[in-house]
Structure formats: C-alpha cells, structure tokens
C-alpha cells in the first residue's frame, strides 16, 4: 500500500476537525465554550435549587452545596459542548465510523483557542496555560509572604489568609502535576519517538481543556468564601466548610480527570506509536519518565477522585463516610488522599528528572550515563511511591505498628532518587560541558533537589518527624523538591525547546539573568524556612513567635525578589516571542534527539514527511562515527549546524 502523502502534508481531508460547520464566532472555540458554560451553570444551579429548598442544611446555612455542585457540573458540560468536544462522542452514538484521528491543520493563532487534535497545538496550549496557572498561584504565594512579614499585624483578614493558603497549595499541586507532561510530554515526546500522530488525540485535547475550567472553578472559590482546609482538605474540616470547598472538590477532581486523560494518551502513544527501530533500549529517558508518570497517574488518581467524591457526598447527600459521629472516619480521607497524595509528589518529581537526564547529555557531549539505571530509577520511584503514603500520618494516631515499615519504604525511595544523581555525575564526568541556559537550569535541579532529598531523610525519620511534621521544615522540604526540582526543569525545558516550538531563539543573556536571580532568590527564600520550621513554626499560620520575625521577613523579601525574577522571565519571554522574534538556527543545541530533525521549526502538521526509521540510540554523543539517530537526518543540513553555542 502506498504512502498517502496528501495526508502527510496536510492537504488531505480535514473532516476530523471537531465541531465542523458554522463560521466566525459560532465556530466552536473558547468563546462558544464560555457561552455554553454560563448556560450550563444557570441550568445546573436552577436544578440544584429547585429540589433542595426544604433541606435542613440548606435552610440553616443559607448556602446550597447541591446547587453549587450541580451548577459547576452544568458549567463543565456546557463548556465542553461549546468547545465542540461532545460532537464526536454524540456522532459515535449514531454510528459514525471513526475518522482516522486527523490533526487539525488550521493555520493562525486562533487554533490555540479551539479544541484541536494536533498534539503540538495542545502542547502550546498547555505551555501557556501552565504558565498562567503557575503565575497565579505564585502571586498567591507572595500574598502569603506579605502576611508573614509581621508576627502579629494582619494584612489580610485571617479567613482571607487561610483561603489564599489553600488556593495557592491546591492550584500548585493540582496544576503543576501536568507542568511537564502537558507542554513537553504532549509536544515533544511524540516527536522524540518519531510518530506522526498520537494514540488518543481527543483524550489529549480533552485533558488540556479540563484545565482552564478547573482553574476557573478553583479560583472562583476565593469569591465565595474560599475553603479553609488547605490543599490537603482534611475531613471533617472540609465537610464543615461553606460552598468554597465545592470549588476545591470540583477543581481538583476535574484536574484529576485531565491527568487521567493525558496519561492514558501518553502511555498508549509511547507503547504503540514508536517509529520503526525505536526499540525500548533506544527510548529517550524522557520517554521512560513519561511512561512511569502515566502509569502512576492511572493507578493513583482514581483514588483521589474517590476521595473527593466521597467528600462531595458528605457535603451534599449527607452521607457520613468522613464523620465518625455517624459511623464514618476522618482517617478514611487521610488514607484515600495520601494514597494519591504521595504518588502525586513523585508525579511532580519524575518528569523533572526525565528532563534533566534528557537534556544534560546534549550539553555534555557524552552518552547519558547508566541509561538503564535511570529508567529503573523512574520505575522504582513510581512503584515505591504507592507504599509510602502513611509517612504523612506518622503522628495521626493510626496504626503505630506500621511506622517502622513506612519509615523503611520511605527511606528506600532515596535509592532510586540517588540513581538520578549517579546518572548526572556519570554523564558530566570527562564531558565537554557547555553552560547554556537550559544546562544551568538542569544543574540547578541537582543543586536544589539535593537539599530537598537530604531533608527528606529528616522528615521520614519518625523520631525527627515528631518535631518537623506539619512545620515549615516540611514546607521548605517539598518546595525544594517540587519548585527546586520540577519547576526549574520546566523553565530549563522552555529555554531548550522554545526554538523548536516557536522557531525563535531566546536570548542566552536574558536567560542567564533569569537563571541566576531565580536560583539565588529561590534558595534565599526556602533555605531559612528549614530553620523556621525547626524553631517551631507550624505551616499555614498567620501568627508566629516574635523571635522568628527576622527570618520570616528575610524570606518574604527574598520571595518578592524571586517573584521579580519570574516576572522578568514572563516579560522577556513574551517580548522575545511576540516582538523581537529572533529566528533560530537549525538544531541550535546540536542535539541528536529526533525532535530536532523535523522539516521546519515549528514542525509541520503531521510532524514528519515520512515515518522516520530510527537507526541509533539518541545519546551517541561520544562516538563521532555513530549512525545518525534516524534516516530522516540530513547530513549537511542537520549535522553541521551553524549555531554552535
């Protein structure tokens, strides 16, 4: 059978465009989605109000959780209907033969505001979405630090303060789980494995479009009294809260659905859509990390959704699963939540490590050291992460006899984490190192995560945990691992792949200013918090001991400067992409990885003119005579690029 080039170049059928018909404003886009969302909210809210008027808890509290939740569910349905995401599932009910999953070949910027099936468009949507979510939650963090400037004087009202804390935590934890999978997993990994399409493009698109509505719902909580339970949402406090808690449940739940959709797609794509010759032993490290991530999400997130669902029922249908007064138990939430919650933090760490191990060899001109060990490290992290959740509950009073076991499993996690350091040290040994901006960020991950990892030993040691549990020490620990790890890797990846994604080269000079300010102020912000925690300051408080004021002020000022560094990034990034637009050279970093050998930057629709045949391992930087990574590599054009940084 001949290869159909008309499809590959995008001139063929475009009937896969969801929604189809209509033009202008009525063509499905974010505008129709918003209209649909408003209508759906009104309908759902009306239904909710119509049958609950006589309910005791509704009359007593003057607020209606049932109407709130039904309103938001209606909003989500309306949103997806407006996006045109429901057209295909409905058409299928009437027996439409599934179209081959055609990416939308639409041109121009408007495609970024539509439900599209092109993994690259989804990747870009995710990239900007994630930046917006990150900056919103970051601003909330600055609001927290503003309150903590003084131990007794209160900028915010205490209820506002605790709501800000909860919003910051929830938004960061739920959104940032997709911070690498969303933009780079969706955009780059299919290119890396040499495929022209992904397994489930509709799930992939759906996964992105869950995030804006989830962001909106969560943020809307702030205007409805918020939720005072933090991102951990411990019951029965979360059962007690007002309607703001419903935004937590729905926002987190929708983001959970988004992660399930995204990980189903990425797992099926990596397993089934690798180009010929892309054997498991040639799969880029990034691919291994995404695979481990995907499986971990699939096995942990349904449990989170269960927990949120049970919480929603306790709040609306008045079941009592989380309330011991009626036969439930607050421990049930702690178990369900942390059974998800601990894999969750590895969901944040694994993609960061994947990026590190992927990018460092490019700038070391050496094969990645101990490739199999790095893959084993990701898989080990993924598996062990399911056996440690009780370490969040060392002081909870449940099952003390299990503590030594969970202390052991938790500390065992240091071993696969240590693999990542082994990989880094081995790769840099006898290397030829270029300290470009992406490389600096990856080294920054190693620097920061070291503190996060070492303090992890304190936190996992039960006797020390008695002092540090629930204190700023723990808070500093996980900011070191998450922000110091995955967020640094995320920014490094932005600098690394922007030329590919946009065709524009970012300034190295500005990038280095961003890096150095960010790492200095990051450490200056979070390092003192270890001391603050050890000296007895619990998390999420608005009043603290006077003797800790200097340290807290230091931290707050550092946090502002860290914010300024990130603002600097935001401005220079947008400015360079929108205004100065310096075209990139081909393969600017001299990478061997397949994604750089596409026809043009950004890659054309369908990625490759023809399916590449992978000829060698992508990390053969040490062997000048190694075969190129795939047969599509053009010797003159690709292997002798002008832009040797």
């Amino acid at each position, binding site marked *: 059978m001949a290869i159909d080039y008309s499809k590959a170049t995008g001139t063929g059928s475009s009937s896969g465009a969801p929604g189809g018909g209509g033009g202008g404003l009525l063509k499905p886009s974010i505008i129709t989605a918003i209209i649909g969302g408003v209508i759906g909210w009104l309908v759902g809210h009306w239904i909710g109000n119509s049958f609950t008027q006589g309910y005791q808890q509704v009359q007593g509290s003057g607020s209606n959780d049932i109407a709130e939740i039904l309103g938001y569910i209606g909003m989500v349905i309306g949103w997806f209907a407006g996006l045109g995401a429901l057209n295909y599932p409905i058409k299928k009910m009437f027996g439409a033969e599934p179209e081959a999953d055609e990416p939308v070949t639409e041109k121009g910027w408007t495609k970024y505001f539509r439900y599209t099936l092109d993994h690259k468009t989804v990747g870009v949507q995710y990239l900007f979405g994630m930046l917006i979510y990150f900056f919103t939650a970051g601003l909330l963090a600055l609001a927290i630090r503003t309150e903590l400037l003084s131990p007794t004087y209160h900028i915010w009202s205490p209820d506002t303060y605790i709501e800000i804390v909860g919003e910051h935590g929830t938004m960061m934890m739920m959104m940032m789980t997709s911070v690498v999978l969303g933009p780079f997993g969706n955009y780059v990994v299919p290119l890396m494995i040499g495929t022209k399409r992904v397994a489930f493009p509709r799930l992939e698109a759906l996964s992105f479009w869950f995030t804006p509505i989830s962001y909106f719902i969560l943020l809307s909580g702030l205007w409805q009294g918020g939720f005072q339970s933090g991102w951990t949402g411990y019951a029965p406090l979360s059962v007690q809260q007002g309607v703001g808690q419903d935004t937590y449940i729905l926002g987190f739940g929708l983001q959970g659905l988004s992660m399930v959709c995204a990980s189903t797609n990425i797992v099926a794509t990596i397993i089934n859509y690798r180009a010929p010759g892309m054997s498991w032993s040639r799969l880029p490290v990034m691919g291994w990390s995404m695979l481990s991530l995907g499986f971990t999400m699939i096995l942990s997130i349904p449990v989170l959704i269960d927990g949120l669902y049970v919480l929603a029922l306790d709040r609306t249908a008045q079941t009592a699963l989380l309330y011991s007064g009626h036969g439930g138990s607050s421990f049930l939430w702690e178990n369900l939540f942390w059974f998800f919650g601990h894999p969750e933090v590895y969901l944040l760490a694994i993609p960061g490590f994947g990026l590190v191990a992927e990018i460092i060899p490019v700038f070391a001109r050496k094969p990645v050291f101990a490739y199999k060990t790095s893959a084993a490290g990701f898989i080990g992290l993924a598996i062990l992460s399911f056996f440690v959740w009780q370490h969040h509950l060392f002081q909870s*009073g449940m099952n003390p006899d299990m503590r030594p076991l969970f202390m052991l499993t938790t*500390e065992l996690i240091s071993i696969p984490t240590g693999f990542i350091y082994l990989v880094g040290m081995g790769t840099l040994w006898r290397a030829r190192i270029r300290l470009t901006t992406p490389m600096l960020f990856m080294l920054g991950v190693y620097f920061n995560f070291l503190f996060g990892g070492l303090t992890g030993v304190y936190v996992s040691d039960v006797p020390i945990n008695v002092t540090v549990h629930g204190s700023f020490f723990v808070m500093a620990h996980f900011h070191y691992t998450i922000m110091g790890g995955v967020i640094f890797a995320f920014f490094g990846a932005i600098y690394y792949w922007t030329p590919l994604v946009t065709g524009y080269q970012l300034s190295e000079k500005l990038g280095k200013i961003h890096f150095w300010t960010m790492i200095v102020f990051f450490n200056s912000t979070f390092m003192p918090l270890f001391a603050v925690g050890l000296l007895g300051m619990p998390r999420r408080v608005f009043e603290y001991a006077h003797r800790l004021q200097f340290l807290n002020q230091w931290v707050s000022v550092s946090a502002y400067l860290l914010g300024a560094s990130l603002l600097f990034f935001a401005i220079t990034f947008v400015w360079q992409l929108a205004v100065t637009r310096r075209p990139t050279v081909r393969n600017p970093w001299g990478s061997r990885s397949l994604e750089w050998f596409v026809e043009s930057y950004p890659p054309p629709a369908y990625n490759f003119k023809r399916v590449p045949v992978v000829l060698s391992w992508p990390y053969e930087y040490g062997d000048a005579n190694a075969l190129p990574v795939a047969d599509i590599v053009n010797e003159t054009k690709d292997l002798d690029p002008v832009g040797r940084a």
Partner: protein
Amino acid sequence: MSHNALDDSRSVEATRKVIPKLIALWIVTSLIASLLVWFVLGPHLPPGRMTDQAAGAQFDIRFVSTLVPPVLFFIWIFFGYSLIKWRVKPGEDPLAPAADFRGNSKAQGAWYIITTVVVLFLAAFGTYYLVVPAGAGGGEGPSPIWTPGVKNMLQVQVIAQQWRFTYRWPQFGGMETTSIFLPVNTEIQFNVTSLDVIHDFWAYQLGVKADANPDVNNVAFTKTQQLGRFTVRCDELCGVWHGAMYNYGYVVSQAQFQQWATQMETQNAAVTKLLPKYSTTYTPSYAGNGGGYYPPQDPNANL
C-alpha cells in the same frame, strides 16, 4: 596547558589520577564540616532538652545532620570538579564528542551498595530511636505499643476544639483547665482527642506531637526533665483560627504543680460538675450541639 592537551584531560589516565585526590578532599572537608555540626551546632539544635523525648529528638536531628555534609560535599566536589575542569574552553569545538562510555559497573555497583546500606542503616536507626524512647513523643493512637512501662503516670487529656486546647485531669477530680502546668521529673501520658475536626497537639519544647482526631484517643508519652515554659501549637490545619490556636504551658516543681492543681480544682469545682464523665474520647451530646447538619435522629437510637 596547551590547546592540544585539552583532550588529554578527558582521558582515563588523567582522571584516574585525580579521583583519589578528590576523595581525599571530600574526606577532609566533610570530616571538618561534620565535626562542626556535631560539636558546635549540635548542642543548640531544637527542640532542646526539656524532656527525654525532646532530648532524643535533638540527638536524632544532630546525628542525621552530621551525616549531611559527607553527602553534600561528595556531590558538590564531583559536580564542581567536572564543571570547572571539563567546561568547553575558548577555541574548542563545543560539539566534538567527549569521552564515550555509557556506564561503569564498578562505580554503579558501589553506588547501589553504598546507598542501600546507608538507607537501611538509617531505617534501623530511626526504628531504634522510635521504639526505645516510648514512641519518641509521637501520637501512638488509642492502644500504644511503645510505652515507658511506668505505672501511675500523670494523665493529661488534651481536648482540642475549634479553636482552643483545654486540658482535663482525671487524677484531679476530672477538672478541666485552659492552662497547663506539668511537674518536673514525671512520666506523663497525654491523651489527645478532639471535639470536632482534626487538630494536632504540638508541645514543641516537650518533643510531643499527636494529632487530635474526633472520637479517637491518641496517646503520647513524655518525661519532663527541666523547668521552663513550653509552647503548645495546633499543627494540623483546623480552619480560620488555626494560626492563633496556641497557648503556653509550664514545667514546674512537683510542689508548685500540686499547689496549682489544688487551686484549680477548687476554682473550677462548680463547672467540673457540669462536665460529662471523664472518658478517653469526648463526644458532645447528640442533640442540639451539632449545628443541625445531619438529620436530628440519633443513629444510635433504636428505630
């Protein structure tokens, strides 16, 4: 070093010579730093030595902190050396292949073994110091398995509610106080429970932390050693006033404690009569005090 010699710096021979030097540097630096941590920083580490459990926690933190510098310096020295030594020099082709090796079975094997041994040792260390000091001051739930083995401990029930701690003293007529005084040189059993949501009783200087769960008795032990003031804070987010849910307690001499307790018993006598009978958990009466969230029928009542 001339430009021609650059690639010699990446040869196995060149690096083989430098590894012992780096290891020597590592041993010296981490030894100095570890000694400083143990002797200079160690005695000042939190949470102090007011109780056996606090002293135990201080020892654990001190010990683990002493292990930190070797790890830090190992990573820093090897990363630092690589970054300085093998950074691309001006005039060098940045894309030329560096060394070509994908692994090193000896280095990898040593790494796996050493990390595993360290981790297993830490787990054993932690377990020992959890079990020996009677649960190390952590909440052990309703039926503690690591106990001090002392009869007639001072019983202090900690009742958390949104948003204050109160303390109940079954050995003093079941009185309930809003302040807490403890006698020195005494084994104390805290019975921590909650009236509503999850709180956490964190007596920082006592080295005690136990979640206060509704309908659950969470037991923690401590033995007081020094006089002084301690801070009690709530350490699980419990709502709007979580940040303000703290009070101060005092470890005083046994005589002063008796005096305080007797005085409190008299002062609170009238209200003590109104309190429910002492029990290890504290469930408010079903009718009326629940805010009317659940339907009014008591699920325990027979249908």
